[in-house]
């Protein structure tokens, strides 16, 4: 709504020619546009730190925790959003924008994460490592949306989680949470 006004000031022009090289866990090197690379706050921070001493054009940032196959996925997401997102928001509004984005995940992003849950989790970890908050939030919300539809038993089964409560403990917790076990009242209002 009213927040849109703040961000529509400039078009998205990539700086021509400026490329950032990064390498994945396996050592594969990728060349990214500066704009794309800087969507990772970690890479942005490094580049800013190095701004003065400068890295030289042959230097490669080693992203030792990210596997190539996951990085490829992330790159797709980054490139899409680099081209489609409005100018980045001021820090104060970042949380809100992410929250809103996660509340109603756009169709493109839904499709992007229409993959095996294990892959979503890996993307999530990599996004956390690279500090790409929006992508991390997107992954978290997507997993939460899956959890939401499952019973406790189904959640355990889905993730292979052992029920490590004693029957007594579980009964106790069941009592405590009885009020949220049933289908919650979905009527629009209660006043």
């Amino acid at each position, binding site marked *: 709504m009213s927040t849109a006004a703040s961000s529509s000031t400039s078009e998205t022009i990539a700086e021509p020619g400026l490329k950032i090289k990064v390498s994945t866990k396996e050592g594969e090197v990728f060349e990214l546009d500066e704009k794309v690379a800087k969507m990772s706050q970690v890479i942005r921070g490094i580049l800013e730190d*190095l701004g003065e001493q400068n890295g030289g054009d042959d230097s490669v940032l080693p992203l030792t925790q990210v596997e190539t196959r996951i990085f490829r996925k992330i790159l797709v997401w980054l490139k899409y959003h680099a081209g489609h997102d409005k100018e980045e928001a001021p820090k104060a*509004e970042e949380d809100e924008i992410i929250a809103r984005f996660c509340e109603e995940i756009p169709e493109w992003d839904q499709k992007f994460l229409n993959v095996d849950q294990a892959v979503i989790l890996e993307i999530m970890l990599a996004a956390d490592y690279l500090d790409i908050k929006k992508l991390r939030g997107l992954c978290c919300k997507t997993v939460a949306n899956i959890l939401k539809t499952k019973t406790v038993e189904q959640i355990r089964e889905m993730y292979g989680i052992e029920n490590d409560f004693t029957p007594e403990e579980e009964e106790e917790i069941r009592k405590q949470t009885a009020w949220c076990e049933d289908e919650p009242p979905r009527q629009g209002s209660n006043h």
Partner: protein
Amino acid sequence: MEKNTRQRRPKPASQPSALSSRRIKRAADAAALDAIRKAAAKRLRLPPQPKNAVHTRSQSNVDPDSPQGPIMNLPNEILVRILKMLPMTDQRRSTRVCKRWRLNLNTPAFFQKVNLCNAASIGLQATAKYLKVGVNHETVNLTFSCTTVSPAYTLASVAIVRSLANRCPLLKRLTFTNGRLPLEALPAIPSSVQTLVLTNVTLINGRGKIFKFYRKETGLNKKAMKAVYQELHRSTTTNK
């Protein structure tokens, strides 16, 4: 200071030469690379390894080949991020899954920020029950957030704010982010609250009209709260 670098906007015509000469000065030597690696190592801190007790315990029971296994390998911080995104009732329900989930869902920190987005759909009663679990006599700091703007939330927020007086005698700082706060909520704020923080919050007056929009984080002390309320109240009763 961080702001300055942020605001730098690419100007294709004039900037590139300056930029590239700054960064791509001929110094791709070992020293520069070393600097990068050091900086990178510092920034790219290793993600927490799944080593804490609760963790390994459940992990040992997970079939390593199970494609879904990784959720138990997530650091607690990320697990919490996921669980936080569940509706309130589902969060409580999930305390039954296993001990690790329960621990993470029951920390005071977990309840420091409550997302009221689902308050309308689960109902006021359920919301109250949820708050009862973790918002209590020890709560000093509390944040409510809501990304969806709904009239139900607006009403709920008044009742919720009212309920805090008895529940949290030590509450010092109450924060609202994103959403609407109606006039009636202000006098309901417990007297123990010293600071009311509003970020991206719209105050609406008694006629449901937008009165004031706090985009930036704004802290109001008691005096300011009172002044705002009086102003709001006036705007409701006068100039029809």
